[in-house]
């Protein structure tokens, strides 16, 4: 029980840290990192609750996390590409 609370708690802390960083920082890269940390927190939480109970762990959350990682990396790639586009325009000015 303690271990789950430990890992789950870490997930929640990661999420909150991400939110904090997202709100406080302006730069795109930092926001993107913040979002990824947030996402990692949620995924971490999922994996922590999957491990609850006896082995083997619940595969459903694992699959969800896999899907989530793909989604997160897609969004990150798009966001960074858009950011680059903006910077290019600024540089061209």
């Amino acid at each position, binding site marked *: 029980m*303690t*271990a789950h609370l*430990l*890992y789950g708690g*870490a997930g929640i*802390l*990661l999420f909150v*840290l*991400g939110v*904090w*960083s997202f709100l406080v*920082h*302006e*730069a*795109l*890269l*930092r926001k*993107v*990192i*913040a979002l*990824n*940390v947030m996402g*990692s927190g949620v*995924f*971490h939480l999922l*994996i*922590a609750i*999957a*491990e609850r109970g006896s*082995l*083997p*762990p619940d595969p459903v959350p*694992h699959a969800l*996390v*896999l899907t989530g*990682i793909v989604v997160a*990396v897609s969004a*990150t*790639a798009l966001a*960074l590409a858009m*950011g*680059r586009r903006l*910077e290019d325009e*600024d540089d061209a000015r």
Partner: protein
Amino acid sequence: MTVLLLLFDLVLVSTLLVLAIAALTSPEPRRAVMFFIAFGLWLALVWARLGAPDVALAEAAIGAGLGGALMLAAARRAARRQREGKVDRDGEAT
């Protein structure tokens, strides 16, 4: 054994959190990204510990591969812009 495991978990988790905080708070973009990559790797480690090797594989592959490379590219640009004075330290456009 359980005590050791608990200690192990504690170190694992606290390192993870420290890495996250480092990634989130360092103002220099490339440093932040490197911390973030390290964080990703560490996360994979933790997930491997938690019995989720599938996910650990994916996180390692993405975190160190595409995700890291993408962010490093962005960080390099951000660092150049910071140096050129186009943005201030927080990244806000001047």
